[in-house]
């Protein structure tokens, strides 16, 4: 069973990276704001950064063990690292790029074909499009037949259109490779689409690690909730009638089925919010009456900002309601859709 075990402690410019992570034959995404230490984790695994303390082992073989004085140089670690802006060698052809670290010429042909870049073999990287470069970078990393795959923001250099198709290709490729893979991204959607598990790294620490749906269903922290797309309502919670009642800072109150008391935040995802002209007659339904702050149409959905809440409704219902910015409306969400997050 392939495995990558990481245990790191390293001081970065203004934070300390403290991370313990075990990756099996799966893809783990590290997400978080920029400057949280995500890329440093990849560099440490690849051997490009020497952590102050730590241990990195692949299938039990130590690549780094500061306590035992073990620190293999990058060329002796079997990693395929895809750099954020791909770092293709501009003076070499696509084929020479892929062959640079390849285990054999047969592997080069195989990988060129697999990533559908055989036709570009004699081109040089400056002449390629963003999506093509990304595939060459992946091909080059895979041709080394690495035991660990590391992807640094593999989609961030692509435009929105290319991004969608490349995301699908990349997911298929990762599933076929079945290598321990660590992927760094600041985009929760990319993480959810590509990774089996998602780790949220903030200020050098792993706040939560779980599947994307676990993070959405039970965010451990306000940052995680916001990262998964939820909006937050702050307030003070107290148990009442077998539920929890939260007196909101913005006025009024909201109910949740999650237990808790004291300072809390309630996380609500946009797809749980419905918008109407009048308050619903149901005590299980929370509602907030406020003017519409903004209306943004994305495809067949409309994002409506109502006071502190963001809701997402169909264009059909938005037209039926005749919504306009500034209209006072009621945004409602069920007590079962309100995730309670205790605040320290």
């Amino acid at each position, binding site marked *: 069973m392939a495995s990558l075990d990481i245990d790191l402690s390293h001081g970065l410019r203004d934070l300390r990276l403290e991370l313990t992570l075990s990756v099996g034959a799966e893809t783990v995404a590290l997400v978080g704001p920029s400057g949280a230490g995500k890329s*440093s984790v990849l560099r440490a695994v690849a051997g*490009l950064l020497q952590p102050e303390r730590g241990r990195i082992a692949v299938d039990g073989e130590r690549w780094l063990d500061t306590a035992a004085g073990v620190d293999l140089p990058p060329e002796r670690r079997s990693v395929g690292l895809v750099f954020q802006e791909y770092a293709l060698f501009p003076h070499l052809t696509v084929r020479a790029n892929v062959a640079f670290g390849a285990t054999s010429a047969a592997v080069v042909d195989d990988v060129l074909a697999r990533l559908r870049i055989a036709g570009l073999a004699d081109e040089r990287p400056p002449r390629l499009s963003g999506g093509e470069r990304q595939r060459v970078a992946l091909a080059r990393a895979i041709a080394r037949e690495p035991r660990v795959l590391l992807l640094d923001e593999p989609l961030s250099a692509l435009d929105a259109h290319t991004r969608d198709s490349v995301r699908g290709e990349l997911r298929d490729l990762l599933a076929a490779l079945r290598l321990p893979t660590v992927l760094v991204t600041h985009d929760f959607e990319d993480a959810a689409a590509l990774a089996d598990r998602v780790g949220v790294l903030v200020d050098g620490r792993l706040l939560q690690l779980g599947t994307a749906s676990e993070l959405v269903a039970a965010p451990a922290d306000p940052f995680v909730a916001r990262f998964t797309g939820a909006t937050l309502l702050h307030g003070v919670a107290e148990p009442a009638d077998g539920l929890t009642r939260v007196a909101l800072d913005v006025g009024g109150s909201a109910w949740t089925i999650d237990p808790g008391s004291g300072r809390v935040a309630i996380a609500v995802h946009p797809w749980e919010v419905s918008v109407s002209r009048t308050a619903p007659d149901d005590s299980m339904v929370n509602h907030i009456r406020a003017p519409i702050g903004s209306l943004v149409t994305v495809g067949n959905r409309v994002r409506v900002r109502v006071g502190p809440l963001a809701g997402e409704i169909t264009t059909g219902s938005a037209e039926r309601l005749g919504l306009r910015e500034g209209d006072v409306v009621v945004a409602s969400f069920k007590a079962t859709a309100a995730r309670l997050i205790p605040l320290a």
Partner: protein
Amino acid sequence: MRRIFPAALALATVITLAFLVVPIAAIFLRVSPATLVDALGSEVARDALVVTVQTTLIAQLLIILFGTPTAYLLATRRFPGHTLAVTLVELPLVLPPAVAGIGLLATFGRLGLLGSSLSALGIEIAFTKVAVVLAVMFVAGPFYVRTGIAAFGEVDASLTDAARTLGAGPARTFGRIALPLALSGLGAGAALSFARGIGEFGATIMFAGSLQGVTQTLSLAVYEQFDVDFDTALAIGAELVVVSAAVLIVVKLVPSWRLSTSIFPTGSATSASS
């Protein structure tokens, strides 16, 4: 005022260009081209050319041999005293050549720091071809090393990092990635140092003297000949103008590699902090 200013700019430019061009043109205009070619055939001119070619080639070879690894190390490693090391490389660039000459004499001269030991072994350096080579290396080498540091510094670190993660050790990374990508910059540096070496005068005349056929280079020959045979001095001068102009053209024509495959041309690639 609106019309005076552009006119003043144009006038200053014309005066500047004329001042710089006329003395060079005068070398070619004072005597006929046939006389120039004849004078180049003289023994003094031929000896000076041979000495210059020999010493310059050896000096350039040594500058590139030692300067390339030095430039690579100073461009890619940070260590205590790094700034001092770069400053020491730059010092000869601003040093008056006469100071370089006296320094070299104080080091390699018969009574110098190393010269006295060498002398005891029967090795004399001052006033030999070796002295010419050393003088040229001292004043011209820093041009190559300084340009080389800049050239290696411009190679995107993520490219050399990528080479390492693809299994290349430090030596292969240097040979396959850093060196080819820095090559145009190194070429420009070599051309600059070559041009400075050809024109070297002060340090050479103090440390190596001006012995015809031994240490007398073209630059020294111009000085020696100008009150002996002015036409020969002019001819050698013309020869140097042509060589220098050729070097300048080479530097201008050196194509610049695209150093990065980045989609964002000015964005730095992977940073260690994110």
